[in-house]
Structures are given as structure tokens and as C-alpha cells.
């Protein structure tokens, strides 16, 4: 097939290697900054069955780095939007979308249907969950993580090698994600591509896989370093504490565009940025209460109005919604794109 000609003419791959790719089954957890390049290259390479797990929807702020999506994907579930794009890239493979959150209830069931599990998530909690489910189902975990300008890649639980818990045994859960602290757009592209490379090497059984090794990359200094680690049986055993527990349904945050917000009768806007934050916004019925003191100042928010929180980028306002709903047991809204959208419409 001419599609894979550039693979087939490589000595290390050939027709037999391409057959291995077409028979391989890989599931990617997270279709965000890392997941997009991983999915794109695995699909193009002809990996026969690809699963995509993601419960989140595409937002405008994702487009800076999540290269499978465009404006028309905004508001659509990421697993579904990625599947649509990837089916166009390669219609000869099977792509299965799981538009759901990975939990202790579905992880092992999903993992058992695949050969390789790719951790392209954005939080430590899910990374430990993926590790534990990989240990229980005896699957390799191709891991990557990014932080601002730095990234790491590793293959855990591969051929009796070290697991994620051997590398990072405890968590104080103080490690923020890209949405909270920012990330250079191209960085997850570089790191996700390295991750896809490890997946292909495992399937093709070629080269040196990052087994019991973590690769560190700094995009500012161009420094790559590889750190080795040992499998620690005590740490591996902790995967056994993976228990089926009831999953708390995620509280829903209702989000509005500025047009939708302005149409609401009795709307009352609350700016949750710090006092004096720029740019200033002129809206009718608007007060400032910084996120940190909402609980203390909740009496300043009129109960009878429809409350719409906004902030710089639409992240703090989501947190404000959860706090408000907890305290007042009443639905309210978050402005989807934050201050930038408001500024465009009201200060022009």
C-alpha cells in the first residue's frame, strides 16, 4: 500500500513491521497537548486500533497547542473531535472514542482491550490511576508530562521495568497543570512526538525503549538528559491499593459566551480577578470580589439576580461557580473565554 511506502522501505520496519503496526492496539488517555501529536502520528503510522479517552470539550484556549482541533471543534468533546479529524487522516484503521472520564470503574476494562497505554493526561491523580491499572492488567505505560518549558518521557511497567510509583512514590499534589500555569505551545508537541516514537519502537521491537529510564528535556537550553531508575517492589505493590470506589459525579459548571450572558435578564456580573486588575471592564451590574475572598464577601452578591462570574481566562471563574453553588445551593454561570471576550465586545 503506497500510504506506508516510506515505512516499508526501511530495513528495520519492512512489510512485517507494518503488519505489526496494523495489528497493534493502543489507547491514549487524554487528547490534549500531548495526546494530539501522539494520536496524529500513531494514526498516520497505521496503528490498527486506537482508543481515545477524554471527557473534556475543546475550548478556544486549547487551540494554541492542541493541533487536532480548529474553531469548528470548540464546544465538542475532545475524543469525538479528535476521532473525526483522525478518520480523515487515515480511514484504514479503527478509532474508538471514549467520551468519558477515566476512573477506577472503567480503567481496567478499557486497558484489557489494548496492548499499550499512553498517559497523555494533565494531572497526577490520573497518572497514578493509569499506573495502577497498568500494573494490574500488566500493560506498558508510555508516560509523558510537561511543565512550562520542560518535559519528561518514560516507559513504565515494560518488561518488568520500573513503574510510575517507583519514580514518584508519593504525591503532595502541589504540581500544577498547563491550564493553571501556562506552557509553551510547541513543547507538548515535541514531548508528545517523543512519546509516539516510544510507542512505535515497542510495537516494532526496534531500538532502545526508555524502560526504567526517564528522559528530561529543557526547551530553553536544548538539554536532554536521561536518568535511570530501579524497579522497587514495595512501590509496585502499592498499585494493589487500586480499589473500586464510587466516583463522585463531577459538579457541572454552566458556561456562557458574552453574547449569551448579555441576553440574560437580571444578570449580575462578578469579576473574580484581584482588585485593580487590568484591563478594566465596564459592565452594568458588576462588582469585583477576588476568588480568594468570595466566601467572606458572598453577602455582596444579590441573591435574586442571575450571577455570572468572569476572570482573566475563564479558569478562576469556574472555581468561583463551584464555591458559590456550594454556599448558596443555587445555579450560576462562568464566562467561558474570560476577560478577553468581554473586552472585545464592551470596550472597543
Amino acid at each position: 500500500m503506497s500510504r506506508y511506502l516510506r515505512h516499508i522501505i526501511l530495513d528495520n520496519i519492512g512489510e512485517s513491521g507494518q503488519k505489526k503496526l496494523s495489528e497493534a492496539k493502543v489507547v491514549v488517555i487524554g487528547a490534549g497537548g500531548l495526546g494530539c501529536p501522539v494520536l496524529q502520528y500513531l494514526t498516520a503510522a497505521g496503528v490498527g486500533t486506537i482508543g481515545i479517552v477524554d471527557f473534556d470539550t475543546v475550548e478556544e484556549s486549547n487551540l494554541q497547542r492542541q493541533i487536532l482541533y480548529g474553531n469548528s471543534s470548540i464546544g465538542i468533546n475532545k475524543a469525538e473531535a479528535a476521532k473525526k479529524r483522525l478518520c480523515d487522516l487515515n480511514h484504514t484503521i479503527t478509532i474508538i472514542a471514549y467520551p468519558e472520564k477515566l476512573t477506577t470503574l472503567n480503567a481496567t476494562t478499557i486497558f484489557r482491550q489494548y496492548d499499550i497505554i499512553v498517559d497523555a493526561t494533565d494531572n497526577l491523580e490520573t497518572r497514578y490511576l493509569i499506573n495502577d491499572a497498568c500494573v494490574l492488567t500488566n500493560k506498558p505505560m508510555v508516560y509523558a508530562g510537561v511543565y512550562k518549558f520542560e518535559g519528561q518521557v518514560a516507559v513504565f511497567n515494560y518488561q518488568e521495568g520500573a513503574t510510575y510509583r517507583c519514580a514518584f512514590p508519593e504525591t503532595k499534589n502541589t504540581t500544577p497543570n498547563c491550564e493553571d500555569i501556562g506552557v509553551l505551545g510547541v513543547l507538548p508537541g515535541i514531548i508528545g512526538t517523543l512519546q509516539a516514537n516510544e510507542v512505535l519502537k515497542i510495537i516494532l521491537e526496534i531500538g532502545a525503549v526508555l524502560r526504567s529510564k526517564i528522559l528530561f528535556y529543557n526547551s530553553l537550553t536544548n538539554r536532554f538528559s536521561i536518568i535511570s531508575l530501579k524497579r522497587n517492589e514495595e512501590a509496585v505493590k502499592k498499585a494493589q491499593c487500586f480499589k473500586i470506589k464510587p466516583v463522585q459525579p463531577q459538579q457541572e459548571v454552566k458556561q456562557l459566551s458574552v453574547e449569551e450572558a448579555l441576553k440574560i435578564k437580571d444578570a449580575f456580573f462578578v469579576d473574580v480577578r484581584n482588585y485593580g486588575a487590568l484591563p478594566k471592564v465596564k459592565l452594568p451590574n458588576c462588582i469585583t470580589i477576588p476568588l480568594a475572598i468570595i466566601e467572606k464577601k458572598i453577602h455582596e452578591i444579590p441573591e435574586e439576580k442571575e450571577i455570572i462570574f468572569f476572570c482573566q481566562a475563564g479558569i478562576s471563574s469556574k472555581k468561583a461557580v463551584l464555591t458559590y453553588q456550594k454556599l448558596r445551593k443555587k445555579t450560576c454561570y462562568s464566562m467561558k473565554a474570560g476577560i478577553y471576550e468581554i473586552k472585545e465586545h464592551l470596550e472597543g
Partner: protein
Amino acid sequence: MKIPVKYYGLIAEAVNKNDDLISFSGTSVEDLLEVLFKKYPVLKTKDFQVAQHNHLLAKNETLDETELALLPPFAGG
């Protein structure tokens, strides 16, 4: 013992430097951590691992004076 230390990711931000020179009596990773926590109490709240000679070390392992690295997990994706 005097060891040059390299900080990565949010560990470098927490201590506000990329490189350091740590002096301490003792030889194990645990001895080093005790001194580091005294110098930078903020590190007590962070997850990280200690690596020397490109290997992650357990707390009871012995250090020499070669440069070591403090490596946190990266959560983002």
C-alpha cells in the same frame, strides 16, 4: 561533603535558582535532605527525587561529590 545541585521545573522556581552548592556532614540522601529542608523549608511541600550519576537514588543510598539533580514529576499535558 560539598555537592553541586541542579534544580528542575517547579523545584527551581520554589528555591529561586537553577544551581546550588550544598555543604553537609553525612553521606546519605537522607542527610542531604535534612540540610536542604532546613535551607529551603518550601521543599518539604514538594514532590521530587534525587539523582546522581544519572540514577534515581533511594533515601538510604550514599552520595559522592558529583553533581546531583532534584527532579519533580511534571503533571501537565
